Each structure stands twice: as structure tokens, then as C-alpha cells.
């Protein structure tokens, strides 16, 4: 379907394409079954960043306050990229791992299902 507009061919500017982010791209991170973080979190990251650096340097700042975070065994974590399961290569970059602008990375940490049986 398309919008009904006064003038034929109307199209708004793409406001959030990657070139607007000064060499970075947006990546959203979603820790499954941990609703203490009420929404997936959105950060700008360089596409050259190794996936391992995302895990070691970025995630603690995002999710580190949750009591489960220190218990995570990252070798066991199960990842989804844009809704599809995938195995990230830790030493390779986000770009080489197929993580594009506005990608959503969802991860599950087996054995850790949040607090009080409420996925919190």
C-alpha cells in the first residue's frame, strides 16, 4: 500500500539512514527474559568493532546492574540477529558478522531466566 497524498510521488526523506550517524551504526540489544530492562536498548557502534568487544566492553555498561549479569557464561549464550539464530564470531567485526544498521541482537542466557520467576 502507499500513502494518499496531495501530490503524486510524495516521499518523505529517510531520516535515519546510516550516513546520518557519523561513521557509526545503530544496534539494539535485547536480553531475553530480563524485563528489568523494560525495552531493547539502542546504541551507536562502529561497524568495525569486533563482536567480542561488544560483549566485553559494551554489554556491561548496558546490563551490568542486573544480578544475573555477572553469572553469564558467554560461551553458552544463544544469539538471534534480526529474528534468526546465529553464531557470532567473537574476533570478527560487527559488519563481518552480518550486523547492519538498525540490527536487533537478541540473546538468551541459558539457566538465567531473570528474577523471581517473573523473567525480571
Amino acid at each position, binding site marked *: *500500500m*502507499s*500513502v*494518499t*497524498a*496531495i501530490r503524486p510521488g*510524495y*516521499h*518523505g*526523506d*529517510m*531520516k*535515519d*539512514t546510516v550516513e*546520518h*550517524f*557519523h561513521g*557509526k551504526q*545503530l544496534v*539494539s540489544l*535485547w536480553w*531475553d*527474559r530480563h*524485563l*528489568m*530492562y*523494560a*525495552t*531493547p*536498548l*539502542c*546504541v*551507536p557502534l562502529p561497524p568495525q568493532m569486533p563482536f567480542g568487544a561488544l560483549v566485553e566492553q559494551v554489554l556491561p*555498561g*548496558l546490563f551490568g*546492574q542486573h544480578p544475573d549479569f555477572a553469572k553469564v557464561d558467554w560461551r553458552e549464550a544463544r544469539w538471534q540477529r*534480526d*529474528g534468526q539464530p546465529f553464531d557470532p564470531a567473537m574476533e570478527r567485526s560487527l559488519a563481518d558478522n552480518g550486523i*547492519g*544498521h*538498525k*540490527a*536487533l541482537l537478541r540473546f538468551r542466557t541459558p539457566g538465567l531466566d531473570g*528474577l*523471581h*520467576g*517473573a*523473567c*525480571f
Partner: protein
Amino acid sequence: MNPPTKKLSLKENYALLTRGLGWEPSYEKHEDIFPHVQFEGIKIHDWDRWEDPFRLTMDAYWKYQGEKERKLYAIIDAFQQNNGHLNVSDARYLQALKLFINGVIGLEYSAHRGFNMIGREFPGVGARIAAQMQAIDELRHAQTQTHALSHYNRYFAGMAEFPHQFDRTWYLSIPKSFFEDAISAGPFEYIVAICFSFEYVLTNLVFMPWMSGAAYNGDMSTVSFGFSAQSDEARHMTLGIEVIKFLLEQDPANVPIVQRWIDKWFWRGYRLLTLVAAMMDYMLPKRVMAWSEAWDIYFEQNGGALFADLARYGIRMPKYADVTVKEKHHASHQLWCTFYQFRHAAGFPVWLPSEEEMDWFSAKYPDTFDRYYRPRYEAWRAMDAAGTPFVNATLPLLCQTCQWPLLFTEPDDPTTVCHREETYLGEKFHFCSDGCRDIFRHEPEKFVHAHLPVHQIYQGHYFRPEADPTAPDFNPLVEALRYMGIEPGVDGGDFRGHIDAVNWEQWSHRPASLHEPMQTPPADEQRKTA
């Protein structure tokens, strides 16, 4: 001497105003004068079938409105002279007023603009007069709401910069974008969106909790505004139903177009009302009813009867009405949890509910509160008591359509965030629900240039001119708050120790929250301990 002129009857007066004032152009083409009434595909064969059920004439309109203004301002004067701000239930009630002044007044003003536009664009004189009167009503509401709340602004924080906050604060982009979507649509979509979907179907859910809430909580100023606006709202609602019947009766081809607009604007309005859900359940110290009860009465029952009545035109219930019924047990709690973790970036202070309040929630939300939400508040309370209060310092992923963070869960699974995605011209877009994704899919050309505050912050557009992004201590999130007009400790943050709470207890000698003990012991006890 001339004989006295015969006074016109109301009917004659209205007929002259709405029929006699119109004329057929002789040297300009009709479509050049009214260029925006064709492109949406709505077919109108006879504008004279438009009937204003009130047959309101100009002289009557000015007389009624003038009388209401006189009464309202007399009450506001008395309220101010009697220090009425100290007679409300507690200092938390004031925080609900901040949502009103920062979020709602901007909507009233936008409605004023929108009705001016359609008052110009419709060829039918009856419809133009009705739109013109509503435009004046909406402007009056923006002004009288500002005046009703101005007294509070002398004493409490977070109300002084309301137009600025409406334009810039991240969660106020939700109401702002709602109205800008309507105003940038065609005139028929605008009137279905605002007069019918919002005013007729949903507005009770705004006015009832706010105005009954004001009455229950001792706010004479705001409740007087409510009374002054009530007869206008009744007229707007009646207009809303007339609009829909007029459009549906004019041509069967209008039915599917109107149905899609109802689907879209019901969902957009419903998402906007999440703000009211949280306000009702969490911000009113003396509660009127729970959000789940309000939704049951005002949408499921009243709305159900309305759509049963409209079935004869071929109109059905709005799409995803069933999802709203599932969400009514969760929405207010999920939003309050979101405000709590982002309280440093809110325009009002936030608190965790007390034991007594949680018991009320358990009674009102027996299937969900104890299972999903009480454990959250207890865990956060423990973290707070341990001196490590929980804060979410990262920006959320926003829905491209409604602009809420993705804070709602799957309709059938309250442990999983609801996320939908769409790729359009190679670009990814994220949504909070099927309803919001459907709206995008129908009009991607429009929604690709939605102004999403999180993305704007990361693009570097939410800084004041004097900000220096090259400075070594530059913090983009702190600068973004400054740009929004949010001063940490004055606007958002914890309610405990907040400047409004401290002042309230000092001035009224009553607890800042009526569900909790005094935050600061009275001065004589302080002297004793010293």
C-alpha cells in the same frame, strides 16, 4: 418610525448562517477554491445533508462561552487567593498535572490549528462553521488549561517551560507526533481521526480520570476547567458521530476508506492513552478507578455498543481491539516500570509504589500484578535499600509509528517484549505491535521521516547551540537532557528528596505522599535530635 425587526427563530438563524452564507463561485472553479477535498477518495454528493445537531449560532456560541469563562475565572481567582495548591491530596498529585501541562495543552493547541485548516478546506458551510467553532473551543481550552495550572507553577517545578518541553522532550514526541500525523493528513482523515476516533471513541478516557481525579484530589482549579470544557466536549463528541454517519451515508465507496482510518486512529489513540493508564493507576493519590476498569466501561462496553450500531453501515470494530483488552492488565504497570528506570530523564519525579498501593493493585489486577509486577517493585525496593538504586542509563529502542519505547509485551506472553520489524527500501524499521506495523506498511512514505528522539540524539541534533561536542568532558546524554529542558534533580529523578516533596512537607506539614510517612521529620523533632 420603523416597526421592530422580527427576531429570527433559532432554526432560521442557523439556516441563514450555514446555508445563506455560502455561495457558488462564478469566475473561479470550485476545485481551485477547495483543492484538498478530492485526493483522499472520499465522495460527498450533498454537503447540505450535514446537520449540526446543536444548531449552534454565532451569537449563542459567544454568549455561552462568555458565561463559562466568567465562572471559571472567578473560581480560579478564589483558588489562588486561598492557597488552593496546598489543599490538593499530596505532592504526587502535582506530578500528574505536569503530564497535563506539558503533554495535553500542546495537543489542544494543535487541535485548534487542525480545525482552522479543515474549516478552510471543506466546501460545505455547515461543516465549516462547526470546524470553526471547534477551532475556537480548542484554543480556549489551551488558554484556560494554562491559566488553571499557572498558580501551581508559582510553587512547583517542571511546569514553566511547557511549550518547550512539548516540542523537545522524548516521551512527549508521542502525543506530538500523534497530532502531527493527523494534521498532515487530508481534511477527511483529520476529522475522522480527531472528531471520531479520538473525541468520540476515546476522549472519555482522558477527561474522566483527569477531571474526576482532580475532583477526588482536591484540585478545584483543574476541575473547574473540566466543567468549563465539558459542554464543548459533549458538542465535539456529537459532531464526531455526525461526521462518521455523514461520510458513510454519502457514498458506499467511503466505507472501506473510513474503516481503515478508524483502524489506524483507534490504535494510535489507544497507544497515546497508555500515558493516561499510568497516570490513573500510579499518579493519582486518591484513585478514581483502575485503568482496566476504565477500559472495560468506556471502550469495551460503550465502544462495543457504538460499533454494533455502526454495523448497519458496514463498519466493524477497530482492528486489534482484542489486543487492547489483553493489554489492559499490563499496560499501566509496564509503562510505570519504564518511567522508573528512565526517571533521570523524565520531566517529573518517579517513585516505587508503597505496600498499601501494591495491595490495591493486587485487588484490581488479580491475574497479573502479584505474578509479574509486584516482584519487580520488591526487587527494585531492595536494590534501593542497598544503596544501589536501579537506573537504565541507555536509550531505548523506539517504535517507528507511535514512538513509545518497545515496552509492551506480546499480547499472549507477558514475559517477552513485543517486537515487529519491516524492511522498506533496504532500511529496517522496528515496531511495538502489529497495529503500529500495519500503519507503517500502509504509509511508509510518510513514516520513514518520523522524528524519533533517540535517533536524533545519536545524530547530534539534540544539543543547545553553546554545546561543544569536541570538549573532552562532553556527554551527549547530559547535553540532550539540557536541550529538552530537563534539569536533573529539578524535573525528574526520585520523588524522595525531590524539591516538590521537600517544599510540600515544609509548607503543608503533610506527607509528600499520602501513602507514605513524612520524608522529613517536622522541625521541632529535628531540633530535639540536634
